[in-house]
């Protein structure tokens, strides 16, 4: 069984409360950092660990922290991004529900390293019950002296505030999140300046994902080098993957990065294989990352076995690769329709576009409408090229990555499943039945090119 760092004690009774958490070695990293380490030394450990942002982009956390501007007399902030809204992703919710003190412990240690005396948890509105759990945990921690003034007599003060969002995917983008936290409309800001220089209230700010901050706890406890031993190459440590779709055992799994994809999807320790049919396609990192055929998920275009790591999953670039993303893993069996799923994604991005910049505001709606037409049996042959052209004109031309996130699923679906799109044009009557592939799975003319 693989090592677990974040979920080691998750099934222990009473782990949600402070007492149970403390009994299982909780808040050791705070004691270690505040009593024996300098803030810079904590940053150094995080750098050594090779930890990369777990929210989706995979940016090295230590490097992000070292970019934080430190002007004298200006407060610095840590903001935890708990606006987990990427379709297919539910790992942070599970962590916060089950073991909220792990996040708080990580925040105390991280704030100490960053020199921040105020921290925020921006949590999505749909997680209202989780916000309650967090607030209760923060109350316990404050009463026990893990938060507040002069923590452990070290002279370090910290307050944590929970802020509940109002239901917008875009507020998961770090600058839109900051705008929303300031009480404004959640529109992404133009970068530069980056939040590390001008973030919340125009002060230097670090925005990190829940899982990233939680991972700081084992890094400080065991040392960055120990953490870096887990994983493969530049993908170090463990990663939470929320598995869903047509797998036998959906759920949240903590994996060591570098686990073979075949093992993850087929072994009974994880997803347990397909739910009675045959796998068709996989989205390994949340709805924004490119969809790949099952064969290309197991092996790269060069025929190498693929691993669950940042590098291996993106091997082949956009042509034959995908991304680890936020770890929102879902698989499709052969009853599923790729066009329908792509339409569903497009509908989501259309609904969630903030409307600030024109390619995304107008383009996402256009994609939605063309895909709707195709899926409902009203499509035409030229629609496929039209879709390709629209996504091409959104990608890379927008302020924030939502435009890219809307474009990539469409691009990859057409790239890998063009024959299925064409089937929707040639068999209009058949696809009018919403369960068209359930009775008669789509048979591909040829399996995807694997050298």
């Amino acid at each position: 069984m693989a090592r677990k760092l974040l979920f080691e004690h998750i099934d222990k009774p009473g782990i949600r409360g402070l007492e149970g958490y403390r009994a299982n070695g909780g808040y050791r990293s705070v004691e270690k950092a505040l009593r024996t380490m300098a803030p810079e030394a904590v940053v150094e450990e995080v750098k050594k660990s090779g930890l990369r942002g777990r929210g989706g982009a995979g940016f090295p956390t230590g490097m992000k922290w070292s970019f934080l501007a430190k002007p004298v007399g200006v407060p610095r902030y840590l903001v935890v991004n708990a606006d987990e809204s990427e379709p297919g992703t539910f790992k942070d919710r599970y962590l916060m529900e089950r073991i909220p003190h792990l996040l708080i412990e990580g925040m105390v240690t991280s704030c100490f390293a960053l020199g921040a005396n105020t921290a925020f948890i921006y949590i999505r509105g749909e997680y209202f019950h989780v916000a309650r759990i967090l607030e209760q945990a923060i109350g316990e921690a404050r009463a026990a002296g893990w938060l507040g003034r002069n923590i452990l007599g070290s002279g370090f003060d910290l307050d944590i505030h929970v802020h509940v969002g109002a239901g917008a995917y875009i507020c998961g983008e770090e600058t839109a999140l900051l705008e929303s936290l300031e009480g404004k409309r959640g529109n992404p800001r133009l970068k530069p300046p980056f939040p590390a220089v001008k973030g919340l209230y125009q002060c230097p700010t670090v925005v990190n994902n829940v899982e990233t901050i939680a991972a700081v706890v084992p890094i400080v406890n065991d040392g960055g080098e120990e953490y870096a031993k887990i994983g493969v190459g530049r993908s170090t440590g463990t990663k939470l993957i929320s598995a869903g779709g047509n797998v036998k055992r959906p759920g949240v799994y903590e994996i060591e990065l570098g686990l073979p994809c075949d093992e993850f999807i087929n072994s009974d320790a994880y997803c347990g294989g397909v739910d009675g049919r045959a796998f068709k396609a996989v989205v390994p990192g949340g709805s924004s990352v490119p969809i790949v055929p099952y064969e290309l998920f197991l092996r790269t275009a060069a025929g190498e076995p693929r691993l669950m790591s940042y590098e291996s999953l993106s091997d082949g670039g956009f042509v034959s690769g995908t991304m680890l993303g936020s770890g929102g893993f879902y698989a499709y069996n052969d009853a599923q329709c790729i066009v329908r799923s792509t339409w569903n994604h497009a509908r989501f991005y259309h609904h969630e576009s903030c409307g600030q910049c024109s390619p995304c505001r107008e383009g996402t709606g256009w994609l939605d409408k063309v895909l709707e037409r195709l899926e409902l049996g009203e499509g035409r042959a030229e629609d496929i090229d039209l879709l390709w052209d629209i996504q091409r004109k959104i990608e890379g031309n927008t302020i924030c990555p939502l435009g890219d996130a809307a474009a990539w699923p469409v691009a990859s679906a057409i790239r890998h499943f063009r024959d299925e799109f064409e089937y929707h044009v040639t068999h209009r009557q058949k696809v009018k039945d919403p369960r068209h592939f359930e009775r008669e799975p789509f048979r591909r003319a040829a399996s995807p090119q694997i050298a």
Partner: protein
Amino acid sequence: MPKVTIDGITIEVPEGTTILQAARMIGERNRADRHVVPPAMCYYSKLETSGGYCRTCLVKVPKGSDKDPRPMPKPVPSCRTTVMDGMEVANTTDPTLIDARNGVVEMLLINHPLDCPICDQAGECDLQDLSYENGTAASRYEFERRTFEPIDIGDTIKLHMTRCILCYRCVKVAEQLTDGRVHGVINRGDAAEISTYISQAIDNDFSGNMIDVCPVGALTDRTFRFASRVWFTKPMDAHRDCDTSGCTGKVVLWLKGDEVLRVTGRKDQWGEVESFICNTCRFGKKDLAAWTVEGPRNIDRHSVIGQGHYTLKRVQPVLTSPAPNVPELAKRKELKDR
């Protein structure tokens, strides 16, 4: 001072200048070089934090600076990107960028009603110019367009949200020129709209400037509504001693005979007013006797108002489906006899 090269033309500019400002400086230095200036629909040099939204001013940066010569991976908004010493910029010289810009223009037009024949802005509309230069003859969009009912915001301004391209300029005017902003953007995505707070009328001394900054016909002057096409009016520079603080009293009168049909700010060659004017000057002085007339205003930029003297900044690419040949049609007998 940093040196920047745009489409092969080099200029030295003060520290902190944006690419767009540098390009405009090149255009001001030599009119023949104006092709290096990217179009801008949302940026307004007189409004802070404007720009970055419309994406029409995107440029490619093949060389970041002398210090760090790596190219920038994505197109950048020239209005909000500061130049670095030795930077090289491609505006009209990169085919992929022209393709991207044409894409942005297409996106801006898919939900625009294209009701130019009944729009007061026609003839001085930035979107008309933009689509004339970067658009295609036909749209590929076949779905129902987004529509809104036109509403009156105050007794002098009409809002046609249907025509809006969400440049946020009017919101910045309200934020920066007037006290107590009562309008802003509500809703999200392609349902986003400019709206007043609980239908409150906009009523303050400088609200009329929203009309001048609006690049399209979304905000128009109710006192000029349907009074005339702009190209039938004669623009004259004029001024008066205005006692509203912050107002220069320098305006353009749009005359038909001796009748003042409309008063606006003076727009420069980039379509921006030289100074903001108050509502008294704009709406309250529709009498020629109230003004000292300086002389005719030279208008050189706009597509329609130029009355046939308009020239394209660049050669348009050949359209895939050529438009019908007009001289050929004219030769046909049934058309001649009509």
